[in-house]
């Protein structure tokens, strides 16, 4: 039996046969591929690379698998009540279904057990070095990569190994995005980012202000409605709050019935507005701001309870924050409120500190690389990012196919180099391509993808790579 606190296996065989660009010893790992992170995306990368006969070394800075879904991890963004947003068929890996006995929307603890079972079933743990952090990834000659690691927390010596390819699967929901406000330093109440919110007991009996209406903000506002003495919910725009069930079925399954029929976006938007009108009704009547966009133009919110609690007066919708005072928060409409706790559910930012900004042509270092299929970097044919997607559906199916495509690309580099070269030129031509309809400008939307558009693009890329 393995537990989630694993100590991995002994260090990689050292063959100090090379030197890095600045003269450090490098152990050559030959054709082995390096995977950074053992969250959902890293695990599926290991599995799919192994399935294509590649050796894999995966480094994971935490002590277990599951990434964001492992609530034992310091950086896990999940809170006690987190349930899936996308129903099972959209969330599970396409070749490892979740059990029939689980509900439509499983709990985060079930997700963790799902990833642990996936790791055991496909014997992935023997490829993972736990408690090991990747601190540098540098291009080496021949499209290879020097990866420098050390024990998490900075103890122990650094070591550098040379790999044939690298998959970056470091996740993008762990580095909090915190807005700045005038007067915030003087504020005497408690301030936290949603990433450190774990349990509704933290809200019990308090006056709580929740900022942001991503899915996190909406979930926390609902918990505050149940636990806190008062709850305000501040948003800088109006949103579409979609229920998790429509017509008696999980909403995403109904939506995909339309997608499968290739109903055009405009018609789907119209149907959606109409369904919401019939079920949730006119949101402005509840005091919620009118959405400044059509449905599908912001990352979808799936929450059946928020509007319900607004309707019961347990959530007070308020506009954006103007500034903080020591004992009050001033809102954009001039009103002042007096919360004891402010929770910023303002999202997360992708970060790639181990990579020189020039590799991603991301000169601002903003964690906003220009990629094709959100995965492939122009000029670096042996580098792939997995999971850098904000899908309107589950992520794991998408990262599964990304890593299958990468494994087949690596195989093509060996067996059909002309195909791999054609792929590389497509990466150069199409980097930056988008896979969603129009979306609102926001730091969270540049990597928003529609799952159907995205998977069709992957399917085409696979086909072009392998067609006779």
């Amino acid at each position: 039996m393995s537990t989630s606190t694993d100590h991995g296996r002994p260090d990689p065989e050292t063959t100090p046969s090379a030197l890095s660009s600045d003269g450090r010893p490098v152990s050559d790992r030959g054709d082995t591929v390096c995977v950074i992170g053992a969250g959902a995306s890293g695990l599926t990368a290991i599995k799919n690379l192994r399935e294509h006969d590649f050796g894999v070394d995966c480094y994971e800075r935490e002590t277990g698998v599951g990434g964001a879904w492992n609530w034992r991890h310091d950086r896990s963004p999940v809170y006690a009540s987190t349930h899936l947003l996308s129903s099972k068929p959209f969330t599970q890996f396409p070749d490892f279904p979740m059990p029939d006995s689980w509900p439509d929307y499983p709990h985060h603890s079930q997700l963790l057990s799902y990833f642990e079972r996936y790791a055991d079933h496909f014997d992935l743990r023997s490829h993972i070095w736990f408690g090991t952090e990747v601190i540098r990834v540098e291009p080496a000659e021949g499209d290879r990569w020097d990866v420098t690691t050390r024990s998490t927390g900075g103890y122990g010596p650094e070591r550098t190994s040379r790999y044939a390819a690298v998959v970056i699967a470091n996740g993008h929901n762990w580095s909090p995005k915190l807005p700045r406000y005038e007067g915030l330093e003087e504020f005497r109440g408690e301030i936290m980012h949603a990433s450190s919110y774990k349990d509704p007991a933290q809200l019990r009996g308090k006056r709580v202000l929740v900022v942001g209406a991503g899915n996190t903000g909406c979930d926390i506002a609902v918990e505050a409605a149940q636990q806190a003495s008062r709850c305000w919910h501040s948003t800088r725009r109006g949103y579409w709050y979609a229920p998790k069930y429509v017509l008696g079925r999980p909403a995403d399954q109904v939506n995909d019935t339309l997608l499968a029929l290739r109903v055009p976006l405009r018609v789907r938007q119209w149907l959606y507005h109409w369904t919401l009108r019939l079920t949730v009704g006119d949101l402005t009547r509840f005091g919620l701001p009118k959405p400044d966009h059509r449905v599908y133009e912001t990352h979808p919110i799936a929450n059946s309870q928020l509007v319900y609690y607004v309707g019961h007066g347990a959530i007070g919708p308020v506009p954006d924050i103007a500034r903080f005072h020591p004992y009050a928060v001033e809102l954009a409409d001039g009103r002042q409120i007096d919360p004891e706790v402010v929770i910023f559910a303002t999202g997360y930012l992708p970060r790639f500190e181990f990579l020189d900004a020039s590799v991603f042509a991301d000169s601002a270092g903003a964690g906003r690389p220009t990629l094709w299929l959100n995965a492939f970097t122009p000029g670096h044919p042996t580098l792939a990012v997995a999971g850098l997607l904000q899908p309107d559906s589950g992520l794991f199916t998408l990262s599964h196919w990304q890593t299958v495509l990468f494994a087949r690309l690596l195989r093509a580099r060996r067996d059909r180099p002309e195909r791999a070269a054609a792929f590389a030129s497509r990466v150069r031509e199409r980097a930056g391509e988008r896979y969603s309809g129009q979306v609102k400008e926001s730091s969270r939307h540049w990597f928003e993808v529609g799952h159907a558009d995205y998977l069709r693009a992957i399917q085409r890329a696979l086909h072009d790579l392998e067609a006779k």
Partner: protein
Amino acid sequence: MTELRIMRGREWSRPVRPARREVLSALPELEEGRPPLLFVPGFGHGAWAFAEHWLGHAASRGFPAYAVSLRGHGGSEPAPEATLRAYAHDVVQVAASLPRQAVLVGHGAGALVVAHALARYPARGAVLVAPVFGGWGVLGAALRRNPAGTLPAVFGGPLRLNRGQLFSRELPDEEARRHVGRLGRAGRRAQWALLGEPEAEPAVGSPPVLVLGSPDDRVVPASTLTRVARRYGSAPLLFPGMGHDLMLDARWAEPIDAILDWLEKEPAPAR
């Protein structure tokens, strides 16, 4: 074979409805790290058909062995409207619930179910025993040998296989009667689907595939064995003198030993 399919709109929007499943098993006394085997019975049969001899024998040779009854069969929940997709779903569900990557072993139309399951689960390997892949040829053979038992199935009634189709003469009458008496029936939609010779999508994870059967099988002609094996890039392993139900016939030990020998040689994945 058809192409790898990533877009699965119908499966996402209309997932198969869960059904209670019977899974029988026999586990080795000592866990030796061998891959688990999942046996999938053909239409009309249940997990019992493997529990009779093969499960115990596999376990005695160190392989954890499981058999599932497809919905509507054996001890699983009744499912008169079951489709081929629902059967494949049942197999993938059980396979994914096992502790390690499994080898799928399908018999008869269960081999077709396995072929479909292979497109949704990267099995460690697959064995197709006396595979019934459908088509009019199989129907023709069945009509010739057993018109009274076969004809009703064409109209949605039950398919009734008889002793002569399933077993060799070596099997004692009483035992044969006992087995035939336990036969049930598949859903009519799944039965009809057989006629269309439903093409499976390519297997994921390129598992090695072994095809075996008997040249004297009265359900599956030898030409079918060859055709199915060729599709997976090999030749069939033959056990002359046996009936269609190789796992129940008198010389049941020979084919299962051949399967286990094949697995012990750690066949390389077919890439």
